[in-house]
């Protein structure tokens, strides 16, 4: 009986580890973000071993005040991959303060 329970517990643990290894999503982390003219650019690194689609939200705040320009874009990361994600913000001057939000799963 004890052996059976032990084997069952080991199987459950192995299944759990396999699930985490095989079915994890990405863990996107922001490396850097900057404005290049009208283009907002974010470099994102996947710190996890999974892959999947995530959402990058850009928000450019004019330093002189006024409404922020915003745009979001979906991107996909593979395990341990680093990617550059760009969007064009129409009407941006290039000196805005850029904020980037990463969302996984993409909402």
């Amino acid at each position, binding site marked *: 009986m004890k052996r059976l329970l032990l084997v069952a517990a080991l199987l459950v643990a192995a299944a759990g580890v396999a699930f*985490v290894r095989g079915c*994890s*999503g990405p863990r996107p982390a922001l490396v850097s973000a900057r404005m290049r003219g009208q283009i907002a650019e974010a470099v994102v690194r996947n710190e*996890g071993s*999974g892959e999947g689609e995530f959402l990058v939200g850009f928000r450019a705040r004019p330093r002189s005040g006024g409404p922020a320009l915003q745009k979001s874009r979906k991107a*996909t990361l593979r395990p341990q991959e680093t990617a550059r994600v760009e969007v064009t913000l129409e009407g941006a001057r290039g000196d805005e303060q850029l904020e980037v939000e990463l969302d996984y*799963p*993409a*909402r």
Partner: protein
Amino acid sequence: MVRGLLKRIITEPGAENAEDYARRVRILALTYAVLFTACCVGAVVIVVEGKLFVTLAQRSNVETLTILFLLVLYCYLGAVSAPGALGAARIALFALRRRFGGDVPAQRRRQMASLPGRGEGPWAALGKVLERTDGAPLRFEIAGEAGYLGALEVEGARVRHLETASGSADLIAYFVRQVEEVTGLDLGLVVWGQLDDDEGERYLAQVEFGRALRRHLGSEPLWPTLAITPAQCDEVQERLRRIAPALLEEAMLPDWEYEAEHKLPVIPEPLGLVSLGRSTKRADPVATMGFATVMVLLTLAVVLLFTFRPPWVPG
């Protein structure tokens, strides 16, 4: 073998001996503390990470209501275990006082004084009439260094825990097991008063009829009867005295008595053609709360895993 295992784990986990009883109380206190903490953590994580779980549910074709169900489960079990967690904290506090404050009997008396007022505890019906060979009433007073903890009174087949501030049905199970060990004969518990008092009263009325008929006829016992000698009574009394410290601690914990039913759907709903089931008249709080704790910890593990390592979802 399965019946014995079920009895040891589910129905009467602390009835074997005094050490088992004390261990059961410690496990119960720990269970309440872990359950309450896990429920609080689970509820907070679900509330704080609500958006993540709703997104995961909708992307993975899991019913979003499952999240609400989990939240309600955590809140319900948290509320049920809160008095037990408080009791566990008080038990730990008094244990620390005993260890570092010295004068153990005085600390135990203080612990006793902190208990609520006394009243009538649980009762149960025995499988046989229990009586003394010398005809004296059967009453076992339980007292330790803390003082008087109540009495077990047997009348016919009815056994009651009286004048107690606690109220554990497992004490009755312990008593019955000790009587069986001391006499070497089966006694058994057939109805638990807290769970089915109507059935218990009906059974006890039949027992009383048998006893009245015996008195009327002046015959040998008509109802199955176990006679216990005064020396055996003293031995049972001594065994009850040994669990007095554990009883004092148990009095700080709530006593949730439930029946238990286990169902295994071989062909699940909506067809539901075959399902296996097994029910137990009484499940000790160690079993019910322990099982609830295991379930909460398992779901909490998944919730935390998904929080810190979100699973892959289709884009």
